[in-house]
């Protein structure tokens, strides 16, 4: 097992949390985008909220070997396996002057809740900070190990 194992573990989490932040930013930026995708009828559809799916990295050879030996392993971090779209229905707003308003005067707007995205962003920030602390701890332990016998 590499001596940098724990740093790589934390690094994978930093990447994942940054991706989460990117997705949340994209959701907020597109909170009013009514023309995001063309559906099969050739009509514009509003932007759909996106979510990141996280999974622990456990499907590698090393982990299976440890499992077979009933030793248990400490795992090797986290990865974002997919970005899924929120299937919640679009919100409907009455605004007859809007260019995308239907004949009844209602506009479909994205299913993004800015409040939810803000909470998600806060959570990503905190997790990112925790992982930075973890990287620093591992780093100082490695630096200390270099002092053995000095």
């Amino acid at each position, binding site marked *: *097992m590499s*001596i940098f*194992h*724990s*740093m790589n*573990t*934390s690094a*994978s*989490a930093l990447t*994942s*949390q940054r991706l*989460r932040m990117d997705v949340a930013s994209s959701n907020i930026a597109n909170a009013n985008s009514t023309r995001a995708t063309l559906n099969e009828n050739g009509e514009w559809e509003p932007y759909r909220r996106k979510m990141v799916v*996280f*999974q*622990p990295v456990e499907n590698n050879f090393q982990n299976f070997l*440890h499992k*077979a*030996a*009933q*030793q*248990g*392993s*400490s*795992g*090797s*971090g*986290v990865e974002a396996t997919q970005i899924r779209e929120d299937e919640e229905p679009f919100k409907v707003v009455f605004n007859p002057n809007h260019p995308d308003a239907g004949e009844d005067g209602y506009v479909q707007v994205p299913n993004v809740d800015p409040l939810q995205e803000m909470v998600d962003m806060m*959570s*990503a920030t905190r*997790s990112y900070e*925790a*992982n930075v*602390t*973890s990287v620093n*701890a*591992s780093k*100082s*332990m490695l630096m*200390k*190990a270099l*002092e*053995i*016998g*000095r």
Partner: protein
Amino acid sequence: MKLFSDTFTTLENALNYSSAKNRAISNNIANVDTPGYKAKDVAFKDVLAQERSSFQTKRTNERHFQFGPDTSESYRTFTKSNTTYNHNGNNVDIDKEMNELAQNQIQYQALVDRMSGKFRSLESVIKGGN
């Protein structure tokens, strides 16, 4: 008399345990937002007093890798599977993990200090106190 006394072996075991614990804590913190993830912890084998498993592999050569519980490592990683802390099945307690991270770091540094102290006293003996 042995030049490198048992203290070195003990310190080495403790250092190995400490770095394994660091790996587990890093992984727990990394997975703090992963649904269904269960926290992992490391414990010394004799402290854990777990039933030894009967899993044993047959080796035709002593240089072959050995499976099973009889490895030279004095610690063992296990998953805390019986608790749920969060609404999504995740049981990582971030406060606890950060606390253990700090504790483990200090423990590691203390162990390295002791190791260096051992080497220094050996050096002192070799040089006859000069």
